[in-house]
């Protein structure tokens, strides 16, 4: 199915993901970050579902449903719970200032747009755009992971990065189911890993601030 309206909606949803990624960069409170992440995943769900509708690919609805259940509901709720239980101080420390981070984010968006639009001149415009946005979301997720010291926000950054990958996979027409399932699967595994980690970290420390781990190592090295 093609047509300006179909295209417009896909464009808005995918572009919205980039925007929400930027919003995540801007957040400096854990709860707010989690809420924005839930919004991010909701947009992803809608975007994937819309792709499923446009492409007539029913298996993408499954991907959308997985995103809805896990990333919009389960994971944010679980992380909320975890933060409350751990009583982590809710301000997130950033490595560099938010302004500089956002500027870097803009640079990354520009980079991905330039790269992706240049290498895919013949592809379907919808796919092209989707890829450019997906790469932006991916790189922005990476930026969140790099600039945040707190383990929970790194996890959120990782998951937003995964959202970008799902967006890319959904945008590639006719990409086989195997990949979608595997993406969902890897998210699941990742979450288990993360869960285990956080539990272990809680066993050992009172904080999930990764810098605390660094300090410990620094002392040992001296």
């Amino acid at each position, binding site marked *: 199915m093609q047509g300006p309206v179909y295209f417009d909606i896909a464009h808005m949803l995918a572009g919205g993901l980039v925007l929400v990624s930027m919003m995540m960069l801007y957040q400096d409170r854990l709860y707010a970050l989690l809420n924005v992440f839930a919004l991010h995943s909701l947009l992803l769900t809608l975007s994937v579902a819309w792709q499923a509708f446009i492409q007539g690919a029913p298996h993408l609805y499954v991907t959308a449903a997985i995103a809805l259940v896990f990333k919009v509901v389960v994971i944010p709720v679980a992380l909320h719970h975890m933060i409350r239980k751990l009583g982590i101080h809710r301000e997130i420390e950033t490595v560099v200032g938010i302004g500089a981070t956002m500027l870097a984010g803009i640079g990354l968006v520009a980079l991905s747009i330039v790269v992706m639009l240049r290498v*895919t001149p013949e592809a379907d415009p919808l796919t092209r755009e989707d890829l450019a946005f997906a790469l932006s979301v991916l790189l922005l997720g*990476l930026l969140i992971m790099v600039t945040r010291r707190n383990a929970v926000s790194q996890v959120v950054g990782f998951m937003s990065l995964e959202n970008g990958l799902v967006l890319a996979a959904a945008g590639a027409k*006719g990409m*086989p189911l195997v*990949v979608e399932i*595997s993406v969902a699967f890897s998210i699941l595994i*990742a979450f288990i890993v*993360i869960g285990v980690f956080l539990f272990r970290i809680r066993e050992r420390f009172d904080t999930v601030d990764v810098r605390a*781990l660094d300090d410990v190592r620094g002392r040992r090295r001296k």
Partner: protein
Amino acid sequence: MNASSLIAFDAFAAVLAIPIAAAALLALMPGYKATARINVAASLLTFAAALSLFVTERPAPGQYLLIDDLNIVFIVLNTFVGFTTSLFSASYIAHELETGRLTPANLRFYHAMYQVMMFGMNLAFVSNNIGLMWVAVELATLTTVLMVGIYRTHEALEAAWKYFILGSVGIAFALFGTILIYLAAQPVIGEGYDAMVWTLLVERAAAFDPALLNVAFIFLLLGYGTKVGLAPLHAWLPDAHAEGPTPISAVLSGLLLNVALYAVLRFKILLAANPEAISPGPLMMTMGLTSLIFAAFMLYRRRDIKRMFAYSSIEHMGIIVFAFGLGGPLANFAGLLHMVMHSLTKSAIFFAVGHIAQIKGTQRLSAIRGLTETHPALGWGLVIGVAAIAGLPPMGVFMSEFLLVSSTFARQPLLAVPLVFGLLVAFGALLLRLTGVAFGQPRGSRQPAEASYLPMYSHLLLVLIAGIYLPPPLVAWFQHIANLLR
């Protein structure tokens, strides 16, 4: 794929089925006493199945699985080192249990994860679908993340966390690259599963859009390159090696790095099949040389013995990637040989280091002295291993490095300068450390080692034999692969 073609995959299926069945058994079985033995038995069976791949008839490449000359070498090496490491691990883990660093529950988890990891690595080698390969590499990585963090100390958790974070960056880039490859293939091959089947991709690669392939390869090289431990994406590697259990360090260095390397090689072949795409060589050579020289200098400042050998792994991965990047029959041959030699030697070194660290109760280099005097078997094993890894004749590593250097001189004389420089720097660092550890004034505990020497010495023996005499069929085989790699 229909049912009849599935049956043809029997040896193949065994390579995959044995580890997964053993993992299930280890996870479900009550008690922990027999776990180490089951682990060894399963690894041995897998190795036997892998060997039988040489003799059995090869099935045609399917939609998911493939067996060809290239991956047989990887599988056999993988299962062999997997088997010897499981032997070493049995005695190592028993000691950890005695000292109370691990609980029986940890032990079951550890062994089950070991088999899952072997499954993941084997699957990565035999997969013919680039999506499946990605999944398999990720599976192997995630299991090793869990194993690195198994001691639950501050350092182990930090190492595992770092490994996980950097690994996930690799995950993301590699998957994005995979999606781009699919997109490049889709207009030529059509939508659906076929556009992810590696053999079909290579056949039709000439018609793909070169620009898209280039970008895809850069993402794949960065993504899988993180796993290979190439500088500047190597930061996870020393920590993960130093803080995890030593058998895992051996497997990480000897095997997991190879898995990622294998993935890079597959995509390199794909890119080479398209005449208009960029040549992957210069990129790989740059990353390889950077890793080599960077790691060589880092070797001087290490105080932790496992961390030091981790940097040595980065160095050697740099050499191998450089060799494959240089390309051509001779360099590819050298790269392949070097990869095999490095896997064998490095795991042998880690076997020795594991026991040494257990006896001394520390991994600090300054606390380990005069090993040849107190523990001659371990000490001399380490000496031979380090001599081999540093590239002294008559060991196999010398042979492959010599081949590589001469091939570089012949084809890119300018690049030979940094290459030789890096090799010499690393050589100096390793010998400097070795003299203290092996010869100096004995320090620390002198209690006798309860070690299994078989895995270590069998590896070293193989490396020695390879350095003196390579059997012609093996040479012919490697040459064939080297041509395949272009």
